[in-house]
């Protein structure tokens, strides 16, 4: 009917656990994936950011060094010592002294800074060299002049910044430096020349070497002509064991690019100094991937751990949730088998707790109702028995038979016949089996027989009349309910009345009910007594009321509390007993 449903046969416990697990699985997978994605993106981004910041820092540092050198060069050039030395018209004998002063001035600069390797000036006049060393053994001037820092600065008014190279000014000294040179053009009264400031290469080397870019990453510096100023594996590059994409680097001013394929993939981050050197960092995306793999592992691991934890918790939780339900179910099964003495002990305030409480209440109600039904059935049986007993009281039978005998002796044959036939009919209707409910007309017939007998027995004591509406004759009434009332009227109303009484039986329809009344004008009783007549559970010694109480009981049991007997009485005035029953037409009767 519902198609194929795999969960149909599983318990709520399983349902909850499966639902939780699915939910958790999806959530964890999603979370783990997004965590991984986010953090790996962050790692990549951060490392690029970090790299470019580092490069920027290196650039700023190197720029600072170089511009310091430039300003030192400018300072040296403008110095009085040098200016005086350059004067054309100074006499020749002061020249050595001035040269010495310049040398001392240069020396004071060099000794104050450890980043300067040497300062020297080569004058146009006779290729004289003035350096920071007063006593120096220079290489040949031709050799010195063929170096780039000299050749390339001639004719420019800009400072020339060389790549890193071995300085060969002093004999047998081969220092690694970066040279900054400037031409001092000759004027009318001064001679020209080239000023050189050598920056210790060690500085740049240390600056770049200390930079850590992952395990394999490194920094290199290339000058605008493609010469490597610094490279940690310069020799490998020259031996073609390694290659750098210098042409692409030289085309880039600032920014990052990824070059190479597969495991050779490198990220180049380039930044350019104001004088054209390019600071390049090389990082390996593989290392980032290595880092990514760690993130991958970690997020997968935690995902699995969370999953296991969540699964365990969901099983525990679903068990805990369904445990009271199971208990309830078990108790319900007991109730199903008829055990209504159970109580479900669930001290929760949640839905299941409420359910359990309701179940408990329901069970106790059912138990109560069951008891009530049992009790009522018992009472019905007893009262029926009593009713039966009431009709065939042996006393009544003996008395009637005595009356018949007595009348026979008197020769009143006609009366004997009447009484005997009435008794016969009375007995037949009493003993007759069959339905509890009989038509009113049949009951009235029975009363008529009964009154005939009684009237003969208590001659002259009372008269009677039956005045019941014809149309209710075929309505149903409980068997033998009127007789005890009439009997009561005779024994308690008529018997002790000196004059002849009258008993009237009426019957009519009132709304949807039927009211039958037995009205006598006997001695009666006070209204208070009459009101409590029915409350007496145990009949008085005189037997007064036993029958009527039983009648009332039977009527109420069969038709409900709204029906039954009502007594109205005044002392010496008589009594009206009203029997109210529902209007029940015989089946098939309109």
């Amino acid at each position, binding site marked *: 009917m519902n198609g194929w449903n795999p969960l149909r046969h599983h318990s709520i416990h399983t349902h909850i656990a499966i639902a939780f697990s699915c939910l958790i699985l999806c959530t964890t997978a999603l979370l783990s994936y997004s965590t991984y994605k986010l953090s790996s993106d962050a790692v990549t981004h951060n490392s690029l950011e970090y790299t470019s910041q580092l490069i920027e820092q290196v650039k700023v540092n190197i720029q600072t060094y170089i511009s310091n050198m430039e300003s030192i060069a400018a300072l040296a050039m403008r110095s009085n010592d040098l200016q005086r030395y350059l004067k054309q018209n100074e006499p020749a004998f002061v020249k050595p002294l001035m040269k010495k002063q310049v040398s001392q001035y240069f020396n004071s600069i060099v000794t104050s800074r450890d980043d300067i390797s040497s300062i020297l000036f080569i004058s146009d006049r006779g290729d004289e060299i003035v350096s920071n060393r007063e006593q120096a053994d220079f*290489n040949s001037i031709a*050799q010195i002049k063929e170096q780039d820092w000299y050749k390339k600065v001639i004719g420019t008014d800009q400072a020339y910044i060389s*790549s890193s*190279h*071995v300085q*060969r000014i002093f004999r*047998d000294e*081969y220092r*690694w430096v970066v040279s900054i040179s400037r031409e001092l053009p000759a004027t009318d009264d001064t001679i020209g020349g080239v000023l050189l400031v050598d920056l210790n*290469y*060690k500085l740049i*080397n*240390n600056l770049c070497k200390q930079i850590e870019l992952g*395990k*394999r990453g490194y920094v290199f510096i290339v000058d605008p002509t493609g*010469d*490597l100023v610094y490279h*940690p*594996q*310069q*020799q*490998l590059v*020259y*031996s073609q*064991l390694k290659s750098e994409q210098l042409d692409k680097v030289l085309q880039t001013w600032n920014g990052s690019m990824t070059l190479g394929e597969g495991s050779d993939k490198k990220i180049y981050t380039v930044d350019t100094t104001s004088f054209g050197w390019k600071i390049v960092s090389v990082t390996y995306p593989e290392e980032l991937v*290595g880092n990514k*793999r*760690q993130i991958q*592992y*970690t997020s997968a*691991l*935690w995902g*699995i*751990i969370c999953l*296991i*934890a969540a699964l*365990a*918790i969901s099983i*525990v939780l679903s068990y*805990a949730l369904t445990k009271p339900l199971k208990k309830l179910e078990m108790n319900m099964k007991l109730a199903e088998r008829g055990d209504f003495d159970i109580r479900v002990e669930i001290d929760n305030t949640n839905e299941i707790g409420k359910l359990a409480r309701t179940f408990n209440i329901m069970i106790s109600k059912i138990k109560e109702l069951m008891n009530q039904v049992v009790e009522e059935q018992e009472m019905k049986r007893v009262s029926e028995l009593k009713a039966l007993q009431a009709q065939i009281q042996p006393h009544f039978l003996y008395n009637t038979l005595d009356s018949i005998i007595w009348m026979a002796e008197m020769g009143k044959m006609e009366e004997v016949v009447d009484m005997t036939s009435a008794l016969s009919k009375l007995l037949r209707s009493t003993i007759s089996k069959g339905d509890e409910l009989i038509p009113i007309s049949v009951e009235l017939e029975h009363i008529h027989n009964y009154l005939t007998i009684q009237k003969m027995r208590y001659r002259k004591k009372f008269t009677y009349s039956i005045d019941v509406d014809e149309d209710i004759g075929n309505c149903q009434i409980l068997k033998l309910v009127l007789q005890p009332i009439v009997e009561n009227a005779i024994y308690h109303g008529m018997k002790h009345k000196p004059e002849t009484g009258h008993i009237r039986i009426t019957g009519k329809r009132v709304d949807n009910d039927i009211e039958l009344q037995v009205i006598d004008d006997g001695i009666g009783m006070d209204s208070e007594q009459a009101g409590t007549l029915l409350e007496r559970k145990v009949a008085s010694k005189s037997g007064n009321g036993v029958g009527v109480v039983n009648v009332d009981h039977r009527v109420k049991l069969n038709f409900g509390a709204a029906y039954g007997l009502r007594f109205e009485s005044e002392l010496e005035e008589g009594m009206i007993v009203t029997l109210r029953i529902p209007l029940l037409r015989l089946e098939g009767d309109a």
Partner: protein
Amino acid sequence: MRRGWTRIRLISVVLLGVIAMGWVGFRIVSHELGSGQKTIIYVPKAIDPTIEFWQVMRQGVASAAKEFDAEIEVMGTRAEVDVDEQIALLQEAIKKKPKAIILAATDYNRIVPVAKEIVAAGITLITVDSGLNGGISKSFIGTDNTDAGRRTAEILRTHVDSHAEIAVINFVKESATAMERESGALEILHRYGNYTLLGPYYSNGSVQTSYDIAKSLLKTKPNLKAIIGLNEPTTYGIGKAIQDLKMQSQVVAVGIDSSMGEIRMLEDGVLLATVIQKPFNMGYSAVKTAVEAIDGKRVSPRIDTGSKVITKENMYSSENQKLLFPFVE
């Protein structure tokens, strides 16, 4: 109340278990990630910081170690000639159970037994610069000495006319390096031109012996146009002799390896050329090869790191500057 307590206890046990599991798992993963380090012991001939050759080789070693994520321990004798100490060092190195040992053997034959021990201990052995008799090592990284010898003779072809006398001064007879260089040089001299070969002579690696040999040759052989020295001290001795006799305009020298003295001679024109090796590349390639061998890759049993002919003209090219004047802190 009691049921609440059991539940709390149950949950806390589950949580504890999960945390413990997570921690263990994390340790395993991080351990797995961190176990990539390879320990390599590098045993140069000497750790003397004044010997530039070994300093530069060490730079190459360090550079490759960084690149290939290897952990390097340096164990070296102070002086190049201490063979016994190197043997002792190697025995100590075996006890440290490294993944590989990079060795610059101080002796072609005497190191062989301990080298065999290294291999027997399951340690990858790589020789650098100076190999071992019998090719015990997984790979030998160094200059192709025959080729270097050839180069010394090649330069002379273009500078010396084909009927000149050319002398060759080698350093020792027993050294494989020396023999290889000599055979290379002789091969070229025999193949080209009509040279009259003088020697080979042996200087024993001593400047003075070399000087004496060269001086007597210079004095007695008027047709002598060139002298080839097959290692640094020998070459220096030759240069010194030429300088002292002021014969640089008639006789040129060609050498192998460089030193300050040789550079001076190059600049002064006494030395026509010198063939230099590439120690940085040796160190770098040795570590690279060691790492590859550890990783189980096939490595070439012989790796030539190349040599370079340096003349006065090209000595200051940006490329050669680095080789000739290595930047050593």
